[in-house]
């Protein structure tokens, strides 16, 4: 499949611009970090270079000024400061539009950005301005020699030259291409056959070239080996050209500029001044560090596969897992040992394939976290609240689609944290907090789930105000007896906002309920905790993937259902004794804790007689537990999740369906919904008692 080359450039540039943003933001915090400066320079350099190769001339031209600026910073001529970082961030955005939607760009904006940059750089030493044009003009060929009748060229390579893949014959051929040559080889240094090392080049040559070519053209022939040879080029003293004669000595020991300014190097030979300014020994070390660093950075972007292909692969694997379940079922119901062995082998392979396929879809959270740094930077500037943004667990991996769906909810949460959570500087000073607020975005694994937390060190939730607002909105009766945790749940109510004024950023009350719904649609949960005066934190608990889960297959009446194993805490038997103790109310004593339970037979209106030994599956969402009473626990099941049709989108109790080994379908229970249902029934059970 051949992609449009410019499309490849776009994708690549987009990644480079993302990493540039990260680097610039880091640089804003540690302006002296050489690695970061180098990385920024490199990103700009590559964008400019590739842009020029792929015909994005505007991009190349615009990027040039910033590349120059970072080159100067890199060479220590000017310092990276906050202003330069800010203007570079705008430049980065402008480059992005230039690449993605050039028609929508306004050249005036671009010019303004460049002018701002020039102003900032202009403040630096005067050398700053001059270096760029010098580097540009250096590529111009040095004044060539007037055409002569020809040249006499003496060639002596270092003996090891053959080991570099250099073929002297090819070079002689190249000379011949310039004009008729007479080549004389001096074999004087070549030893006798017994002592001959075929990898050592001891022959020297003298070439008489009859050509009107310039000296540069001859030097170009040897461009790659210029440092590993002795080359003497002298014009042939012929018809009126004698003026140069022997004086035209060879630039063999000349400045490096001559040696490294071949045709393929439009940017070689930087102004000698610039070169001298950079301490020579210091150069290689950061270069190496950067090399390694870049290798690490690039680790995540080596294979490019279209997302649809991954989805397709996942679908296939899903079908394989279903087919394998059927095979296992048939094998185990028969007596053929050989088939059983094969079925087990295939089961093992299918589960391995499932894990690797899911692994391929996994993307580190870092790619998502990076986006928020810019958000925090801009918000903190707009709101005048300095904020330290800390991210933890960038390596935590999640399914790609999950990560994409997580972006919007996290934007809301981070905005809230800065806008509502972090106090303004005066308030912070009053409470003896540091003037700079802190927001931590963290991700970590907990079992088969990922925990994402957004934590701020602001004022914390004002429980009294939330309560007042809830009463005002008629959500609760005045004076109702609610725990703090229950009161905080009102924040997730549609249209609920306690913000005194509606800012452009948040406070319109359309955030948290959407966040909650999005997270729950991903089979995740959201929870809020707060310590007044010390900040609050929002915890998202998410499954690793949406495609295949480990499920517990159960039977209720005639129907079979799947409970996600990650929500299952334990399975116990509902003894007649326990039922008697419950006195008709649906509570179960689990080691001293009262856990409400739901009879799924009742919930699903199951027909027929219940099994004599009812089982309780204790499930939990966050800190809330609910027991689900079922007829039979069949066992664990690799559950390939198929979403329900639009027709069933308002069925809340099920989150999807799956196909079982015998080809029949089973619905997947939405445990979060059942827990809520169980809790609300428990409330009803409690209330009459309280009354």
């Amino acid at each position, binding site marked *: 499949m051949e992609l449009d*080359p410019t499309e490849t450039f776009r994708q690549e540039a987009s990644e480079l611009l993302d990493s540039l943003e990260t680097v610039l933001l880091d640089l804003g915090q540690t302006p002296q970090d050489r690695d970061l400066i180098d990385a920024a320079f490199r990103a700009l350099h590559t964008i400019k270079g590739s842009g020029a190769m792929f015909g994005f001339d505007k991009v190349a031209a615009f990027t040039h000024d910033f590349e120059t600026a970072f080159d100067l910073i890199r060479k220590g001529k000017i310092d990276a400061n906050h202003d330069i970082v800010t203007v570079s961030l705008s430049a980065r955005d402008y480059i992005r539009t230039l690449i993605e939607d050039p028609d929508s760009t306004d050249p005036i904006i671009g010019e303004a950005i460049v002018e701002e940059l020039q102003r900032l750089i202009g403040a630096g030493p005067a050398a700053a301005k001059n270096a760029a044009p010098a580097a540009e003009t250096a590529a111009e060929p040095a004044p060539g020699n007037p055409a002569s009748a020809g040249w006499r060229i003496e060639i002596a390579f270092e003996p090891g030259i053959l080991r570099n893949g250099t073929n002297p014959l090819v070079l002689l051929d190249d000379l011949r291409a310039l004009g008729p040559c007479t080549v004389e080889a001096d074999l004087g240094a070549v030893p006798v056959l017994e002592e001959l090392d075929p990898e050592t080049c001891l022959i020297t040559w003298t070439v008489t070239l009859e050509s009107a070519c310039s000296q540069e053209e001859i030097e170009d022939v040897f461009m790659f080996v210029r440092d590993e040879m002795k080359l003497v080029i002298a014009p042939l003293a012929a018809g009126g050209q004698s003026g140069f004669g022997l004086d035209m000595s060879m630039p063999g020991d000349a400045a490096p500029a001559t040696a490294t300014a071949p045709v393929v190097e439009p940017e070689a030979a930087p102004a000698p001044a610039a070169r001298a300014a950079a301490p020579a020994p210091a150069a290689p070390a950061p270069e190496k560090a950067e090399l390694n660093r870049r290798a690490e950075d690039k680790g995540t972007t080596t294979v490019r596969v279209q997302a649809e292909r991954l989805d397709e692969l996942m679908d296939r694997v899903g079908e394989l897992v279903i087919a394998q379940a059927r095979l296992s079922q048939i094998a185990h119901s028969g007596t053929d040992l050989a088939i059983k062995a094969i079925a087990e082998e295939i089961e093992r392979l299918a589960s391995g394939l499932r894990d690797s396929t899911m692994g391929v879809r996994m993307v580190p959270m870092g790619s998502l976290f990076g986006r928020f740094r810019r958000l925090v930077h801009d918000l903190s500037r707009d709101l005048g609240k300095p904020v330290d943004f800390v991210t933890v667990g960038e390596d935590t991996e999640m399914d790609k689609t999950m990560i994409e769906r997580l972006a919007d909810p996290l934007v809301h949460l981070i905005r809230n944290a800065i806008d509502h959570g972090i106090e303004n500087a005066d308030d912070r000073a009053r409470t003896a907090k540091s003037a700079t607020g802190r927001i931590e975005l963290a991700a970590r694994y907990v079992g088969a789930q990922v925990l994402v937390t957004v934590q701020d060190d602001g004022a914390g939730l004002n429980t009294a105000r939330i309560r007042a607002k809830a009463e005002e909105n008629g959500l609760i009766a005045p004076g109702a007896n609610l725990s703090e945790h229950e009161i905080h749940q009102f924040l997730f109510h549609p249209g609920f906002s306690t913000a005194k004024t509606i800012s452009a950023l948040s406070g319109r009350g359309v955030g948290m309920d959407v966040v909650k719904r999005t997270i729950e649609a991903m089979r995740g949960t959201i929870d809020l905790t707060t310590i007044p005066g010390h900040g609050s934190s929002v915890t998202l608990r998410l499954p690793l993937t949406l495609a295949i889960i480990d499920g517990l297959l159960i039977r209720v009446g005639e129907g079979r259902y799947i409970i996600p194993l990650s929500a299952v805490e334990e399975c116990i038997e509902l003894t007649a004794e326990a039922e008697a103790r419950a006195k008709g109310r649906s509570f179960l004593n689990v080691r001293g804790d009262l856990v409400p339970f739901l009879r799924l037979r009742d919930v699903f209106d199951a027909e027929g007689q219940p099994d004599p030994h009812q089982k309780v599956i204790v499930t939990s969402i966050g800190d809330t537990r609910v027991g689900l009473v079922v007829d039979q626990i069949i066992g664990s099941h690799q559950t390939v999740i198929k979403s329900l049709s639009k027709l069933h989108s308002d069925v809340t109790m099920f989150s999807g369906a799956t196909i079982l080994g015998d080809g029949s379908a089973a619905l997947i229970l939405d445990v979060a919904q059942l827990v809520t249902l169980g809790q609300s029934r428990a409330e009803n059970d409690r209330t009459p008692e309280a009354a």
Partner: protein
Amino acid sequence: MANILTVDDSPSVRQMIKLVLGPAGHNVVEAGDGSEGLAKAKAQSFDLVITDLNMPVMNGMQMIKALRALPAFMGTPIVFLTTESDDAVKQEAKAAGATGWITKPFKPEQLLAVVAKLVRA
């Protein structure tokens, strides 16, 4: 005509090389990093290797050294791509066994010129 191995972690650069050298009659084989390049080099012989230096997994320097240790690659021209016009990098790569270099960004003509220089049809 010539078998050319191009090793670069940037797909756009690989594609550029393929777009320029393919129509010129060369067979271009791509690899995304040094170790992939090395693996392909062991499976097939090449007339020229064009490699980036900064790559994940195995960088260009390491790959060049490893290639030069292979008997089949002792005399094969190896060209590296560099975004820097830094002599130190060039010296290091040459010491590792590289034959020449191409500075990024390059124009199609420049690439063709270098290939023509090192590969004899």
